[in-house]
């Protein structure tokens, strides 16, 4: 067994049920030959060990651009001082998971009982055994929350070595509710850490969840994120992921469209410069009639970076009238960079409209020359073209502060790429 799992298990605190979950992962180890990990090797990570994460104080100005309501976790610990959910309207409940666990809330027990059996989902299994913190959000039926709710994860250097943490989030929107969620992954200083986050979203009949996630973690961070969302009848889920930071970032986005007429829009940008590795894996399941998904992803790989994209869509028997659209375009910006893209469409229903396309190309030399011939220096011309390539994803975010924020984060990341 590798050092990684031993070090993560060392901090275990929990009951016999969770201990049994942990023992299962320890027994099975990390997946070595699983198809779903083909392009993302865990061999190096397996040899590293991580300490328990400690609560660390950070400079609050780091969060200056993120307004309330916000809930902040520093190294996986809920930070009550930096969090501010005082101005929430009636009908939305936001709180840390730890508080729920203390109170034996049946919802917490229910969520945490979810089992992960597959060998290729080690981080979900670890999360089930080890997560003690997260955010729990419930929006009551018919409540439309105006201000976006910000969930902030900050990684900060701590004494005692590189830290690891596991977070479990629950987002529940009841019938006809609406919520905008913005997730941030931020770095407070240079350091390495391992973050493992699992988010459940349940969007009930006619409810709308909009979700922007800006991952701009520390350059040496390893992040494993998984989102499991369930959409009921006429529910809508629109999310945008910007993968801009971390050394290794793997995101598994699993969405089950269980109700008739459910719609999913999931777009994103994978930006892999330096030696970064960004891996996004979509698992979209259409289980009901007349459901729709629209997936627009853009990948950029420069220097020795690697962008990995898997777009899996399954249209199950009976999900007639489904419309599915997947577009994944990629730009290879250097000879040493790598892009792996794999759209996988499985159809078991009738009257389905499904389209997918994946391309890998380079910046158009004619466009580059055109811009330079007007006086733009090459670096600036490249930045303009790469920005245009990604901008489609950001422009699809509805008008408002979330888009401004995402646009600014993307702009900063692209400027780094040009430098």
């Amino acid at each position, binding site marked *: 067994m590798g050092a990684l799992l031993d070090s993560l298990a060392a901090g275990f605190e929990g009951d016999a049920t969770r201990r049994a979950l942990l023992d299962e992962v320890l027994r099975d180890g990390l997946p070595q030959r699983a198809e779903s990990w083909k392009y993302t090797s865990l061999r190096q990570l397996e040899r590293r060990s991580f300490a328990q994460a400690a609560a660390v104080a950070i400079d609050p100005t780091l969060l200056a651009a993120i307004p309330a309501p916000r809930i902040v976790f520093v190294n996986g610990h809920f930070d009550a001082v930096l969090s501010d959910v005082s101005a929430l309207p009636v009908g939305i409940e936001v709180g840390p998971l730890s508080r729920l666990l203390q109170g034996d809330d049946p919802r917490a027990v229910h969520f945490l009982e979810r089992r992960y059996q597959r060998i290729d989902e080690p981080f979900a299994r670890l999360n089930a055994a080890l997560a003690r913190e997260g955010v729990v959000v419930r929006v009551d039926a018919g409540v439309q929350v105006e201000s976006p709710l910000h969930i902030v994860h900050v990684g900060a250097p701590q004494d005692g070595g590189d830290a690891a943490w596991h977070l479990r989030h629950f987002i529940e929107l009841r019938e006809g509710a609406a919520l905008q969620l913005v997730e941030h992954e931020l770095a407070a200083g240079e350091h390495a850490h391992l973050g493992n986050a699992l988010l459940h979203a349940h969007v009930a009949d006619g409810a709308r969840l909009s979700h922007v996630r800006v991952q701009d973690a520390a350059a040496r961070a390893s992040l494993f994120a998984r989102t499991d969302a369930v959409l009921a009848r006429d529910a809508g889920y629109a999310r945008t992921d910007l993968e801009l930071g971390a050394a290794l970032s793997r995101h598994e986005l699993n969405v089950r469209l269980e109700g008739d007429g459910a719609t999913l829009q999931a777009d994103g940008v994978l930006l892999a410069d330096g030696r970064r590795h960004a891996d996004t894996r979509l698992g979209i399941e259409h289980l009901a009639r007349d459901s729709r998904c629209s997936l627009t992803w853009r990948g950029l790989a420069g220097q020795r970076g690697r962008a990995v994209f898997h777009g899996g869509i399954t249209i199950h028997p009976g999900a007639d009238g489904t419309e599915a659209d997947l577009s994944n375009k990629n730009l290879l910006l250097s000879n040493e960079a790598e892009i792996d893209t794999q759209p996988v469409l499985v159809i078991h229903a009738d009257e389905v409209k499904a389209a997918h396309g994946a391309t890998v190309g380079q910046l*158009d*030399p*004619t*466009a580059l*020359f*055109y*811009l*330079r*011939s*007007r*006086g*733009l*220096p*090459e670096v*600036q*011309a490249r930045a*303009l*073209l790469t*920005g*245009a*390539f990604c*901008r*489609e994803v950001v422009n699809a975010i509805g008008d408002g502060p979330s888009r401004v924020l995402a646009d600014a984060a993307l702009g900063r990341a692209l400027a780094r790429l040009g430098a």
Partner: protein
Amino acid sequence: MLKITDLHATVAGKEILKGLSLSVAAGEVHAIMGPNGAGKSTLGNILAGRDGYEVTAGTIEFDGKPLLELEPEERAAAGVFLAFQYPVEIPGVNNTYFLRAAFNAQRKARGQEELDSMQFLKKVREKLAVLHLKDELLHRGVNEGFSGGEKKRNEIFQMALLEPKLAILDETDSGLDIDALKAVADGVNAQRSNERAFLVITHYQRLLDYIKPDVVHVLANGRIVESGGPELALQLEEHGYDWIRNRLAPEAA
């Protein structure tokens, strides 16, 4: 202003320019005419610094300095402008944003103060009026969804804005109807001045009815084979390029 001496150039190993020499003084309009494949566009592209062209011999001086050593953006800042034969569509890059970035990049390279968006917009409106271009085009992506005529007028509009010393028009007349042609010619004529030179590359004499050249050159087989006044263009129109070929043949023999 521009002095090209014995220029030889290859594209993908094939020699296209074979000893081209040309001098253009400030304030002059020179037309370069010639049959397809003579090397007209190659000349324009080499002057602007496009990749894929190898200069194997000869020199180009611009304002007394060697031009070939400069990057395309340095040439632009020095005052060279190429109006493209096929202007590029760049969706996602806003036209106004791009123009202001280019405009200010040039000013910065020349050590001049950059214009803020208000000052820039004022300048843009002045120039737009001359070209009869719709404001709305400014808010679109660069050349995105523009008609052929709009693209060419946009090139001339950019030229008006960037105020180059040497403007090279690469078959700007191709694909234009008569109204668009006149609009383009009006735009060019409005910018003629004692400080600015034009190199008008064209296959047809038609454009020269509206932009009166001082000198007409005939480019054939990679060299200037004939130079003269505006009447040379008319002769070409009348006799066709075979006339030049026939005049050349004895010399070649």
